[in-house]
């Protein structure tokens, strides 16, 4: 009964053995989960967003659970590009799958500098531009909500590196398609969506927001229908591949994104609950394909609207 199923996928030259990757910020530098399973079974790893300088991040509390969701205001806490290149990359020897490095900045120049420095790193398979982190006051929201800025940023970064560029979009916009098209026009090789949805929880006993940073980004299963809708809209409007994410827990969830038009999917918040979920999802995708007689998972990409 067991037929061969082709789960492999090539996104902008990033060759993945399967379409299941980890979402930035939920998997550290790919090292924290090495103890739980063989990370090399994934399609790729996306690391926590890196900035030029070390960032301490936002004051705690930084996370609060919401109904089927997680609100966070980590604030891009990361050791900075120097430490990343000197200390983290050498530790990544045991990771043999593509490593996608997420970068974030306050200004275009910062992205450009990060990109050109990472350009020289062999271990880096692609760059993801995090233009949509809602937890940074400067930059952040501006980039992600202005089509013009997004295009300009993408063009600038492309000039600085020959690495494939993935632009990660924010859901906190009136028209995500417009932003997606701007990124594509700027030369993005692929798009990631969605980042977190702006939200807030108030502690009624203290009469103030729970999070130290007041607002945070909502992730997890709660936002899944929002993410599926956006992947559906964007993937029909652009010619570059889309990496879908937002509340993916199971193979069925992953299939929703693939059928909505995603070429690959990323697991975020659910890693925290079930660290081996990405593996379960890979198995589940294979099983689905076998049962449904699908020889190549690529047949399913966008099949709900094609």
């Amino acid at each position: 009964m067991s037929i061969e199923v082709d789960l492999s996928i090539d996104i902008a030259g990033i060759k993945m053995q399967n379409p299941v990757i980890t979402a930035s910020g939920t998997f550290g530098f790919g090292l924290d989960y090495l103890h739980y399973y063989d990370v090399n079974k994934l399609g790729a790893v996306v690391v926590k967003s890196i900035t030029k300088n070390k960032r301490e991040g936002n004051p705690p509390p930084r996370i609060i659970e919401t109904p089927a969701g997680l609100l966070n205001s980590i604030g891009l806490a990361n050791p900075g590009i120097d430490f990343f290149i000197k200390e983290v990359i050498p530790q990544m020897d045991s990771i043999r799958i593509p490593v996608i490095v997420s970068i974030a900045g306050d200004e275009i120049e910062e992205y450009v500098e990060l990109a050109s420095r990472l350009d020289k790193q062999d271990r880096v398979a692609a760059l993801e531009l995090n233009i949509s982190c809602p937890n940074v006051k400067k930059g952040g929201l501006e980039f992600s909500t202005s089509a013009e800025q997004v295009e300009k940023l993408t063009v600038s970064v492309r000039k600085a590196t020959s690495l494939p560029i993935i632009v990660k979009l924010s859901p906190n916009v009136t028209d995500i398609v417009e932003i997606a098209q701007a990124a594509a026009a700027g030369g993005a090789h692929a798009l990631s969506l969605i980042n977190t949805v702006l939200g807030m929880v108030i502690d009624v006993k203290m009469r103030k927001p729970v999070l130290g940073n007041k607002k945070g980004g909502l992730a997890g299963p709660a936002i899944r229908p929002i993410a599926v809708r956006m992947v559906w809209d964007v993937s029909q409007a652009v010619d570059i591949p889309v990496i879908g994410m937002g509340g993916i827990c199971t193979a069925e969830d992953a299939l929703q994104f693939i059928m909505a038009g995603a070429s690959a999917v990323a697991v975020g918040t659910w890693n925290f609950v079930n660290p081996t979920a990405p593996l379960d999802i890979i198995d589940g995708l294979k099983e689905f394909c076998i049962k449904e007689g699908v020889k190549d998972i690529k047949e399913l990409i966008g099949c709900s609207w094609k």
Partner: protein
Amino acid sequence: MLKKERRKMRVRAQIVEHLKIGRAYYLLGLHAPEIARTAEAGQFINIRCAETLDPLLRRPFSFYSIDRDAGIIKILYEVKGRGTEILSKYKVGDFLDIMGPLGRGIDELDNGGIQVILLGGGVGGAPMAALAEKLHECGMRAIRVLLGASTMDRLIPFDVFKSLGIEVSAATEDGSLGYKGFVTDLLKKQLEKFERKDCLVYACGPKEMLKAAAEICRNKGVKCIVLMDALMACGVGACQGCALKVRDEDGVETYVRVCTEGPNFDAREVVWE
């Protein structure tokens, strides 16, 4: 470091004991030999309390006791909200999805000569039980346990300590058992009695209590290790959610992860906000 962390794992553990303790707490025993084998006092496990997506996250609980031979670990927990409410419904024989052992264990125990005080506020006394066992195992005899709670129902059981021959003093805010007042008052008195600085205090409990204990110890020049609480998402160091502000010797402030660099910290490093 990596080698040590490799011991972390995720298992389905069977419940071998589940008892209501007093009016507020539950004692939960789990058969998890792989985890028990390497577990250390001061570490914790992350339990998936519900099978549904609400509540979503795992919940962290400190080891209350570790029995390597039997492969059994125990936690003592308080029903606080929905996660622990659901947890309390599980029956002996059921399985739970747990991750552990997480965090750093307490490993500064070799200095045999020292006098140790274990300070626990409310259910914060739970990890002190595992610690007392470990200290006793290491041959340490100069141990005193100070437990506090709002009322006697909320004191953790004394039996673990008593069976080790360790003296327990209790304080309740309403005076229903032991000293009437805060357990930190007992700490102050105890430290005054000692009149010596080669004493080590371990403390776990509400933030206000830890803050008070830290100050008392600092004034006496006594080292105090606090077990910190934090809202946690991953428990393994990946999310940066459990940030705690610490200050190094040069006064430089940074955030550390309670789940990975902690949960135990030298109280002098903690920036109390």
